Every structure is written in C-alpha cells, then in structure tokens.
C-alpha cells in the first residue's frame, strides 16, 4: 500500500446508521435457528458502535453459520470449509483500518479448521471470532460434530456418537497468547449482546463461543438448560460483565469471576453441567501479531527502490571487475 496507514483511519464525519443499513437479504436459516439471534446481536452492535459498513468485513467458512456474511450489508468473505481464520488473518494483516469479524461453526472451527483455530489464538490478531456451536453438522444434514455430546444420534452415528465432546473453551484457554474468551447462549439476547460488545471492544483475538440451538437436527439437546435457569451460570465482575437486574432476577446462579484469572477460567470452561455465560478470560496486554509484524514505515516508491537497490548492490558484479 502506498498510502499512509493513518490515511485509512481518517474519519472526518461521524456516521450513524440505522439497523436496516446493516441488513442484507432474508436469512435462509430455519425458523428457531440460533443463528438468527446472533445476527440480531451483531447487527445491533454495528449500529450502536457506528461501524462504517464499508470498513467492516465478516469472514466465514462453510456451514449454516457461515452464511452469516451474506446477511450483513458490509463487506463479506464466504470462503471454504475450515479456512475462515487464515483468510481473516490475511485481511487483518493487510488492512489495519478494517473491522474484522469471523463466523465459524463447530465443524468449521473445531474439526476441519482446528489447526487454524489453535494458531489463530496464538497469533492473537485483532478480530472478533464467533463460534456458532450447535453441536451438529446442519448444512450437510445431521452428522456428529466434535462438540456433539457423547451418545448423539446422527446420520453418521446412528447408534449414538462414541466420543466425548470436545470443549472449545477449554481448548482455547489452553493455547498460549489467548487474550479474550467469552461464552453466551442464543436464548438470552441481552447477555449475548453484552458479550458480543465486550468482544468487539477487546483489542486482540476475541473468541466467543455461542451455544446455539439447532431446531432441525438437535432440537431438544439444550432443553435441560433452557428450562432450568439455575443451569446458566452468570459470570459477573467489574472487569468483565455486570448482568442487569432484569437478567439477574431470572438467572440467579451468579458467581463472581475475575476474568484475569486464567486458572479459574479453565476450571469454569470444563463445567458441562452448567453453562458459564459471560467473560471467562481477558488479558488486554497480549500483543497482536499484526502489530509485531507490520512495518510502520510508509511504503513510498523511494523506500521500496532504496531497499531493492541495497539488496542488488550486494550481488552485483560491476564492469571492470570491482565488486
């Protein structure tokens, strides 16, 4: 890029957009699909934060959740299965001026794209990652995913899946350089929005696992949690989220959790009987890969030429024999 990095960031006019300005098309998701709740929360975030649609990119892989960018009137990249994170990393390194979001599912992120997931946490590039975890492959019509609970009956596991479910939060919290991990459920919109908002404001890779219902292929799997508010464990802390009085009156299972406490976060992440909702871990001090790697010198013609000539000088044989 030949322009100054700051030129991209110049915003002379405060822009405000209505919710409709972020909406595009009619989602093809099933009615009752948790993806709709995530879309609503994210569109609200864009409006509330005044994100410029042309400066915002949603990157996804393949799966039901990865349809997400098509429903945002921003820039979007609906790529290939499992590779949303490396695509988003490329966007981020190339363009510090963009808001980068990633939508990925449990198959996309935790199975075919698992290598990228681990390394994305380690790179800690500034982007917000939503793991739409419905514990089943939806687009390909009901196959067990790595996060399916053991015993899940699916088209590939007709007698029930045989392996214990992978815990995405535990995995994420086990990776070096993890800087932001949160969890929300699609059926508590207020908390979902608060978590999404906190994730957006973190500089670094924010990993948000959203427990998401799939009414089509795993319709009853979350019922025990849905019907028993005590099994939602609200994580409250001044450094994290402070749930409102309204939410707290319904969800009374509330604990104090300091999101800077990594060991405690790891303990909470392993909890499968209750779903911790809120911010599990937050460390704003972890450096971002793009800040470590990107040059701060503007790439002018003179700069590039000087660099190239200096290299050529080292390998040039001059007429007359002097080297």
């Amino acid at each position: 890029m030949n322009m100054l990095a700051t030129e991209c960031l110049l915003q002379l006019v405060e822009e405000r957009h209505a919710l409709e300005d972020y909406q595009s098309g009619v989602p093809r998701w099933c009615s009752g699909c948790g993806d709709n709740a995530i879309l609503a929360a994210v569109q609200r975030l864009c409006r509330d934060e005044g994100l410029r649609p042309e400066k915002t990119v949603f990157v996804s892989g393949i799966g039901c959740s990865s349809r997400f960018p098509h429903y945002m009137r921003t820039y979007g990249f609906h790529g290939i299965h499992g590779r949303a994170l490396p695509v988003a990393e490329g966007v981020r390194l190339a363009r510090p001026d963009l808001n980068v979001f990633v939508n990925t599912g449990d198959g996309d992120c935790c199975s075919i794209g698992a290598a990228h997931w681990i390394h994305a946490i380690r790179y800690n590039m500034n982007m917000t990652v939503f793991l739409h975890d419905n514990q089943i492959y939806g687009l390909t019509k009901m196959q067990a995913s790595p996060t399916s609970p053991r015993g899940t009956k699916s088209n590939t596991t007709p007698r029930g899946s045989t392996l214990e479910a992978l815990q995405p939060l535990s995995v994420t919290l086990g990776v070096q350089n993890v800087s932001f991990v949160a969890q929300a459920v699609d059926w508590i919109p207020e908390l979902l929005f608060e978590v999404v908002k906190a994730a957006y404001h973190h500089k670094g890779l924010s990993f948000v696992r959203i427990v998401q219902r799939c009414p089509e292929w795993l319709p009853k799997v979350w019922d025990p949690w849905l019907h028993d508010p005590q099994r939602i464990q609200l994580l409250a802390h001044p450094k994290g989220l402070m749930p409102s009085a309204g939410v707290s009156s319904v969800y009374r299972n509330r604990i104090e959790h300091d999101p800077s406490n990594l060991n405690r976060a790891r303990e909470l992440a392993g909890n499968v009987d209750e779903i911790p909702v809120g911010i599990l871990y937050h460390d704003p001090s972890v450096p971002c890969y793009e800040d470590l790697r990107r040059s701060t010198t503007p790439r002018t013609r003179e700069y590039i030429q000087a660099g190239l000539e200096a290299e050529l000088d080292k390998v040039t044989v001059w007429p007359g024999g002097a080297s």
Partner: protein
Amino acid sequence: MWRQHSDATIAKAYAETHEKLVAAGFRVIEIPMERECKALVADAKRGKNMFALGMLCNLYSLDLQLAREQIALTFGKKDASVVAQNVKLLEAGHAWAEANLDFQYRIPAERATEPMVVVNGNTALALGVLASGMEICAMYPITPATSASHYLSDVFEKVGGVVHQAEDEIAACAFAIGASYAGKCTVTITSGPGYSLKQEAIGLAVMSEIPLVVVNVQRGGPSTGQPTKVEQGDALAAIFGSHGDAPKVVMAASTIEDCFYSMITARKIAETFNMVVVVLTDASLATSQQPFPRPAFSETWIAPPIDQSAVPAGMKPYDWDVATGLARRFIPGQPGGMHTVTGLAHDRDSHVAYDPEINEETLHFRSLKLAAFQKTLKTPAVFGDPNGGDLLVIGWGSTQGAIEEAVQSLRDEGAKVSSLHLRFLQPLAGGLRQILKKFRKVMTIEGNWCDRMEDEIIDESNRRYSALAMLLRARTLVDVDCWSEVKGQPIKPGTIRRVLAAKLAE
C-alpha cells in the same frame, strides 16, 4: 594415503582403480594430501578441502589473495586461529601444486560490460517479490522453495514487507487470499506437496476472482518424492488442478533472470485480470547461479494504491464484460461496494446463484478472461530457423539453456533443427500451430514422465505423453512426440543432442 589404508579392501580398490586408469592411458598424479595436511593439522579430515582449494588456485592461476579474503569472510565469526589455520592449509596446497605439478591453466574471466547480478533462482525470485510491489508473502517451510522465503524474511522488512510463516500450506494460501482480497496482492511460495495442499484455496481465488500469485518450485513427485531434486512434474497440476473448471495463468521461468521478472509480471497479470497466476520454477533454477544484467528499477513495478474510492451507484461487484469476462473488483473500504464474495456459484451481485443459467454463464466469463489474457501474449521466437526445418524441439522451464546448446551444436553441423521455449503454459500463446506446421518433426524435451515406446505394452493407444507434449497435441493437432528424463538431475546438453540426433535420423 588410500594406498596404505588400514582397511585392506580400500587399499586394494585404490590400487586397482589406479592401475585401470594408467592402463587406459591416463596420466595419474597421486597427491599425498593426508600426509601434507597432517603436517599442519592434527585431523587431516578437517583440512583437506582447504589444501585442495589451494591446489586448484594454483592449477587455474587464480589469485590466492582472493581466496585468503574469502576464508577470512567465511570464518570471520570464529576464532582468529581458525582463519589462520585454514589460510595455512590453503597456502600449503598452493605451494605443493607449484612444486609438484608441471601444468597450469588460465581461464580468462569474461569481463562484464554492464553491471551483472549473480544470484540463484530462489534469491532472484525473492528479489522479484521485493520489486513486484507485493507486500505480503505467506508461506510454510518446504524444500526446495524455502530458501526463497529465508532470503525474503531477511530483506522484505527493508521495504515494508512481511513474510508470514503460516501454520500449514492451506493456511498460507488462505492467508494470501485474505490479504489479496483486502487489496494487497499477495504471493505464496511452495513446492509440490504444498502445491497439492493449496489446491482447494486456489479454486476459491479462481471462483471469487481474487488476484493471487502462487510460486511452485517444483521437485520430484508424486508424494514426498525427491525433495531436493529437479523435476518438471507439476505443469498439469498447475493448469488443471483444483476441482471443477478453474482457469488460471501458468508461467514457467526458464532462467534465473526470469525468476526475477516473472514475479513482477505475475502480480500485474493477477491484478489486471483478477486471476490466480502460478509461477513454476524448479529445484535446478532454485539453487544454480547465472549472472544477468542488473535490473533497472522501474516505477511501473510497484503496485498502485488500494482503490478506496466510492463505488458509483448501480455498479455490481461482478459486472462481467461480455466480450472479455473482466469485471472491476470492489475492495473493502470502498463506500457503496459492500458485498460478500463467495466460493459458491454467484451472480453479478455476488449473490449465491440458484438460477440454472448463472453457473454456466459465470464459467463462461471466467474462461473468457483467460482468452482475453492470451490475446496479449506474443508468439515466442524460434531459436534457429523460424522458416522451418526437419525438427522443432519445444521445452519449458529450466531446460532452455541445455536445449539451445544442443540445438546450436547440431545446427553448427548443418542439421535443420530449431527450438522453441515457452514461458506461458496456460494459456499457450497464439501462432504456435503455424510454427509447428513448418517443421517435419516436432518433439518436446521435458523433465516429467512420458511412456517409452520401447516398452512392449506401450503403443499409441495407451502412451502417456509428457505434459507439454500433451498440451501441444491438444492445442495444435500436430503429432508432437516427446522425450523425457526424470532422474532428478538437470538434463544435460549432450544427452539432448543425442536424442535430437536420433530423432533426426528416424
């Protein structure tokens, strides 16, 4: 000395070899290198190379002082005694040759008339990336491509570039696509197995029409094959790879100089046509050196600034031109251009296409782009006689020097043989059929497998041709024969000469 080696079999083998050489009429000079070195160092194994270097300096009348300086440079970081020790060995070798050899050669250095750059192909490639205006290289370590990324890692930052070592080949390609999508055409550098892994992502770039430069420093295949050896086995994978119809431009560098300029050309093609450009080099180009005129920097090499202008109302993200298939690309940050690119079949609005007509229509446009690009290609020049002759030999990639040397030596003897070297494998330049038709026989010389007609069960109905021969046969309807050698070593001019002579005699 070997003659007195404690292992009787070694001593015997030495004596026998010596006798054989003498019997064959050779003058054999026995050099007591070990004994001479032991006078200077305790372990002769650690000194013989310098002794030999000193001898060679004497033999070829080379300036001993330059060798001393080179030793000081090479071992400069080590103890001063190491330098002194090596210089002593060098001088001893020189002195021994002076005292004991009665012959000496002088090969005059060819004086450069202009500044010449001396690098290997991978360094030339990396310098080309520097010069191309590309700013990001995403890669994963693989032999023999990696040394290009090593060099680039060292120098790219000096021009504000970044080498991203991704977690795997797929990620490297996806990362490059992401950066290219965001406006900075990016290169990913790999070799055979890595190229296979990138195929799905390459298809994504083709489908979404995102510019991308992929370098494949070919090595022996399939599978892990011969990681350090030369082969030209990936041409068809480069052209036809990725499922479905995925048209892309495939270039092949034929010289070290070509490695440099190919990168500049590749980015320009990629960005002009919103296409994937694959640049093929190979293990031979990667590691060999060849001087070429120092490139004079040109402003036109640098990438233009990222277009952040507002998109005029009514414009669509894929407004394909019906004649050329070209469409202007919208880059994130451009107001009014918001859309979601997708690897799914899509219409002009980049909406997922459910209309049965649209898939075929878009295949059509993506294919037209290749034709539009082909219209910009010059017909390659014939080496030898463009008016025709008995045999035309066609090659691509690193074999150019060897083929032309063989052709020239046969022409010097009056043979009516000429050659043609192709820089673009996909699309092939126009005018090839007309050239081929002027020759009585046409064949390719390639470093990839073709079935040998001398095999009992091989005949015209089942013979697998070499890559370029297959392409040329399909493209020109000329009966192009092929000869190939896939031994992991560069094909020698002498070998090619024999093959061509035999073909002429057929």
